[in-house]
């Protein structure tokens, strides 16, 4: 049934994005599409799931199955898809507000459970779609519509948080670096378990501080330094650096069984979604005998 022709990024193009010209999310979208092709996926084998936000519009722009759901809820939806049909490749896409603000609880627990999802966050350190308010990753002092005198909150570090929550693949990209980001996403898809790829993706309309220029001046690749991705302490050290240098690359990776590998119900019988709805007479007999 499944025809396996080699596909290219183009085959994963959906409708044209209506993001602002120059928006960082274009680069991320591009990288996701390339990564799908690089991994050798077929569009119908992939489900791209998002919440709500500029970044969360991505599923419509991608030629795979897509779920464009509720603000902050991409991960529960994605987990549902993956658990019910673990043969599918499931990617969650979203923004910093969506994932680390309203979605922080789900992020914590999806990472902890090591659900086999690749989570691509387009982190612009602002709420874009709602026209520019502080986000959990906004840096102190950032002036936004909700902080006209500058933010006074300590920012959330998604990399260190993901590592501590139990994510087994944790990376940071920059949307201007399509080649690097593509590789991080592709490896994240290949990784079995929960992978986070947090991507700095400038909002050119509302965040006047964390711009393309800002990152271009500061980004340094972990490849260029000595970093052992199995060493969480070093990973956190690099991830915490936020000054003249900001690191991108794979911070942390470890192999441990993912939730679908752990749940005995998936050991045989194939995906939940494809099982017969009607019970078998044997199953019914067991249910009946429990009643008596």
């Amino acid at each position, binding site marked *: *049934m*499944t*025809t396996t022709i080699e596909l290219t990024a183009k085959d994963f193009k*959906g409708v044209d994005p*209506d993001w602002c010209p120059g928006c960082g999310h274009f680069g991320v979208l591009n990288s996701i599409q390339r990564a799908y092709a690089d991994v050798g996926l*077929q*569009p*119908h*084998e992939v*489900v791209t*799931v998002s919440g*709500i936000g500029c970044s969360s*519009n991505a*599923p*419509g722009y991608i030629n*795979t*199955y*897509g*779920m*464009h*759901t*509720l603000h902050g*809820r991409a991960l*529960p*939806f*994605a*987990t*549902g*898809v993956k*658990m*019910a*049909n673990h*043969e*599918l490749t499931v990617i969650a896409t979203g923004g910093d507000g969506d994932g680390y603000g309203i979605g922080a*609880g*789900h992020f*914590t*627990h999806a990472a902890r459970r090591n659900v086999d999802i690749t989570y691509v966050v387009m982190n612009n350190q602002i709420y874009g779609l709602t026209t520019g308010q502080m986000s959990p990753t906004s840096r102190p002092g950032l002036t936004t519509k909700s902080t006209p005198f500058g933010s006074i909150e300590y920012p959330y570090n998604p990399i260190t948080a993901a590592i501590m929550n139990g994510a087994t693949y944790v990376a940071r990209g920059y949307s201007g670096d399509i080649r690097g980001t593509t590789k991080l996403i592709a490896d994240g898809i290949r990784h079995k378990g929960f992978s986070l790829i947090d991507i700095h993706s400038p909002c050119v309309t509302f965040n006047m501080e964390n711009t393309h220029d800002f990152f271009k001046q500061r980004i340094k690749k972990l490849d260029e330094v000595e970093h052992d991705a199995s060493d969480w302490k070093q990973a956190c050290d690099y991830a915490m650096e936020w000054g003249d240098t900001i690191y991108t690359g794979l911070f942390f990776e470890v192999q441990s069984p993912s939730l679908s590998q752990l*749940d*005995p*119900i*998936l050991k045989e*019988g194939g*995906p*939940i*979604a*494809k*099982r*017969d*709805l*009607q*019970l078998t007479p044997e*199953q*019914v007999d*067991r*249910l*009946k005998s*429990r*009643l*008596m």
Partner: protein
Amino acid sequence: MSSYDMAIAIGGEAGQGIATPGDILARLFVRRGLYFNSYNAFQSIVRGGHIFLTLRTTEEMKYSHGDKIDLLLCLNQDTMDKHLHFMKAGSKVLYNSDKITPGKAADGVQLCGLPIADLTGNARAGLNQNTVAVGAILYLLGMEFQVLKDSLTQQFQRKGEAVVNENIKVAQAGFEHAIKQFEQFPDEIPMLEKPRGVWSGNDALAMGGAVAGVKFYAAYPMSPSTGVLHWFANNGRNIGAMVRQIEDEIGVANIVIGAAHTGARTLSATSGGGFALMTEAIGAASMMEIPTVYIDVMRAGPSTGVPTKTEQGDLWQALGASQGDFQRFIVAPIHAQDAFNLMPEIFNLTDRFQCPGIVLSDLLISEGHYSVDPDELDFFPAIERGVTITEPAAGNTGYHRYKFTENGVSPRAVAGLEGYIHVVATDEHEENSGLISDEFTNPHKRRAMVEKRSRKFENIVAEIAPPEIIGPADADVTLIGWGSTFAAMHDALPLLADRGITANFLSVKWIVPLHTERIAEVFANANHTIIVENNQSGQFARYLRGETGLVPDGHIRKYDGEPFMPHHIADGVEENLKNNTEQFIPFQEIVV
């Protein structure tokens, strides 16, 4: 004379092991083929407090725990002090006479003291008092000791022979003490041909889901819905279903939609507070047109309220769940077996009409235990998935997820199929899923899509059976209720007949769609109408009036956390007919 009807109450505190004698007696009754039901009044506390378990067994089907107690077993002084006054002539009161001082009983009440220390040779007397009592009860009911012996053997065999023997010994001591000291009940306990089983309302909901094909169950624990989670946790492996405990109800409500999008039938259950958190997702499921079913097992509110008490207080929450106008089914099962039957029905409807379904159960139904005859249950119900596409297609099918159709239902392809790639979206969208909220917000397309969805429900009432009136035609009074009040209304009819009032009743289960024509017909043919509901504000009465304009002649309401007893309704009917009161709130006699 009237058929066999025996109610046994056991009172004590949490941790005194009330469940065990309750379970043993329940099994003994249903093995004789008798009907059985029980109601447990307890508190939100793990040990201590006051528990009052009422077990009723009958020859004819009864749904409520009734109005009388024939036998009261006091496991502590508190029970004696609180409930002795409720006991009428002909009833019996058992208690540990070593520790409990009986109060002043009404004439004709037999006080049956059990000298537990003596009878058990003092061996772990505290723990064994329940078994002694069960032995005594067995005699009082006129059963042979052998059945208890078998039952105890089964119950304790995991703990080894010594424990079995010990239990049989003390039970026998109780039995024999009763022979010597107490009088049996005059009515002979029937032995019918076919044994029954026992389940709780939560078991029924869960099993109904299982036979409907639920293969993904997710939940966050919340009383009184947790029994559904426990059922799936215990039985999931048998039926090939995944069971996930999630970090919160928001996660639950959304994960089941994600799973359903792949084609699985998915279910979750919660109570009012958790349901409040789920509402946003319910609107999303409807907008994306993905079927899944949410159970809200109602408890006494508002807010945290009284977690271990019953109420029908979430009707308006279900009606008002999530913003905007959208399609969803709402059904309130009227008893446990109805709950089982409704699950495949609502799953078929949600699949066929591609929207979520809400099941409003309550603590009374869900945590109550009932006899059940498995042969009356359909374990292989028809599975109707409507225009759900689950097979891949080759090439470009030109598939549009939200295609305009005459009845508003668009063929739904599940995620992962070759040939049907599409996006589902909570933003307003076009036939091809393109967002109407973006770039060009076309009001005509928006209107057309709203109307497509709403067409699905235009003739929806034809899809469900109209509610049936029960009882004599042309009665003096017609009672109208919804959901769990079925039990007390059903059992109130004979009481009313005894008082010279003929009554019939209508139990509405489908809230959306509502069978307005049938209900209007019932009102039109009634001599006097009374709405019965287990809440303060008359949630159903207000909803019914909004949908039909119908206003009853009277109301009977209860909102003290306890369910109606049949005589509460009979009293209310009498009062109302005498025109004493338009709204009757019964007094709860049993206080735990």
